């Protein structure tokens, strides 16, 4: 059990899915990005995914690529991500980090886990690290009591689904579509199939990410998943100008969505 599973279970007890919001730290600048994460919490996100920008984000689409590049030009560092994690925790949501593997490796698997724990973070989502690729990370995270959140995809075989769900703590991150992060018009059927596969492999909590951008989609997904993860739509709402009110309105729309299912 962790702060993350407690929060997901509390949402379930309210008869709804959790809303998980992603933002890259440092976009459009460090201060505004942290203010934006507070807005996520105030407007209804239960969990906030803090993304340290990475120079080669192979699983991200153009919107998040642009934000990451802009943040790196502004001089953001991995240290800033831990400052953001602390701010999210203080604002009352559960912070997790979504990080590409090399940033973790360079800090050291164990130091990354401990720094996260010390900042009040609950877990790490690893888009380019599967459990079989990084036993060092899994053991460092276990030792620091940090959740290891791995991804599953429509192409995931039954065998790998089992492996990934067994190694995931906190929740399993299911991507309903093949492709990079970004907005899609429809996510329904494929999302249900991936969630079913993960549940059959024993996953207790499954959140859906990649492609969700509207309250309507969130409501649909909230009908069968434990959480709805939104990134690109929030990054777009925040924009280069750092429009916190436009962001707040978008978060409120999605927060209504997860509450209006069933």
């Amino acid at each position, binding site marked *: 059990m962790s702060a993350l599973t407690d929060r997901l279970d509390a949402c379930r007890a309210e008869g709804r899915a959790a809303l998980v919001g992603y933002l890259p730290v440092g976009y459009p600048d460090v201060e505004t990005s942290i203010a934006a994460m507070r807005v996520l919490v105030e407007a209804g996100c239960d969990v906030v995914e803090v993304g340290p920008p990475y120079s080669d984000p192979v*699983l991200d689409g153009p919107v998040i690529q642009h934000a990451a*590049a802009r943040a790196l030009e502004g001089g953001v560092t991995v240290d800033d991500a831990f400052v953001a994690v602390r701010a999210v925790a203080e604002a009352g949501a559960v912070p997790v980090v979504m990080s590409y593997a*090399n940033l973790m*490796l*360079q*800090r050291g698997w164990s130091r990354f886990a401990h720094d996260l724990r010390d900042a009040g973070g609950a877990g790490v989502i690893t888009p380019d690290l599967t459990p079989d690729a990084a036993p060092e990370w899994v053991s460092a995270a276990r030792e620091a009591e940090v959740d290891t959140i791995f*991804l599953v995809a*429509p*192409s995931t075989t039954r065998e790998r689904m089992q492996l990934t769900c067994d190694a995931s703590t906190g929740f399993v991150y299911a991507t309903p579509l093949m492709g990079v992060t970004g907005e899609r018009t429809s996510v329904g059927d494929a999302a249900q199939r991936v969630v079913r596969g993960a549940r059959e492999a024993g996953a207790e909590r499954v959140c859906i990410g990649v492609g969700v951008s509207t309250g309507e989609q969130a409501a649909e997904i909230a009908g069968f998943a434990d959480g709805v993860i939104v990134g690109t739509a929030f990054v777009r709402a925040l924009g280069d100008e750092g429009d916190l009110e436009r962001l707040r309105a978008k978060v409120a729309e999605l927060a209504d969505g997860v509450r209006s299912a069933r």
Partner: protein
Amino acid sequence: MTESLQEAPGPYFGEFGGRFVPEALMAALDELTDAYDKARIDPEFTGELERLARDYTGRPSIVTEVPRFAAHCGGARVLLKREDLNHTGSHKINNVLGQALLTKRLGKSRVIAETGAGQHGVATATAAALMGLDCVIYMGEEDTERQSLNVARMRLLGAEVIPVATGTRTLRDAINEAFRDWVANVETTNYVFGTAAGPHPFPAMVRDFQRVISVEARAQMLELGGLPDAVLACVGGGSNAIGSFDAFLDDRDVRLIGCEAAGDGVETGRHAATLTGGRPGILHGSMSYILQDEDGQTQPSHSISAGLDYPGVGPEHTWLSSIGRAEYWPVTDAEAMEAFRLLTRTEGILPAIESAHALAGAIRLGRELGPEATLLVTLSGRGDKDVEQAARWFEMLPEGDE
């Protein structure tokens, strides 16, 4: 007897290599590994590949002794393994034909590839035309400008060329974009990776397809009087170098020297000499050396040669370096261009600027070892694509053309 170093199977070479990719690609990589493991021992596959190598690529490639160039290498005996004479003008075709045949075995109809100088893109577009596959090539925008002739060649061959305008607008960004395409289209699409880097099975598979360079060269050298004292090849990702080294790995008296692009000089920070100036990290699916900052952000690389302008290197090279079996030397733009000029003027052979880095290594080593030494240099590609850039470097363009 020590254990053979040849044909190391991966996924790990020592502590380097592996597979660090999104889960969405794992099934495709497993499928590819499985198909390749079956194909490599299937006489139908190996026979077809041999036939194509002979009747299409023009293998075996010859070895040319270059005495007038060698006079500038301390009088050492210098021989070139002529991959520049292959169909499409570089070693890239060796790998591409193998991977395109595999694509057909996988029942897929579309190939994607990244390219830096355009050589791998041209080779992939060629194989796609030959085998009736749809083909999309990702190329950094800066490289499409440096190598506009190759862009036209790919388009003439029927490929769609997509300039990549993100990041540093070079090879590394082209690879990122190709991975994104693959994640989205993996059911119909095979990623024909161009170098001996990336996630397993690419480093071992690309090495196997390029191994023909050293297998032929070793036999050719024995016929010409004996094994060379050293084998030299240029290293970006390192496919021609690993192909040039593999059959010599167990000949412990043969020095293996990879020539990395040192750009303006490693000390300036403007270079692409990953093994000289980098440290271990994860990039593009494998653990190897990379040029990176303290946090692990990949640093931009710099080289006059688009094909070597890459901040990573194949994991097997990192391993060979770590165990001391191969050496990796930095070669600056200026040294490479001087070697380019020398070979062209003394032998009438116009090398690719990439390959000129290996020639520069031979000049340095020959002067060190003297006339008793025999050096085998892989001429990985021809320089037709580089004529404009070289003419600009040597200020040979008519005035007013700039």
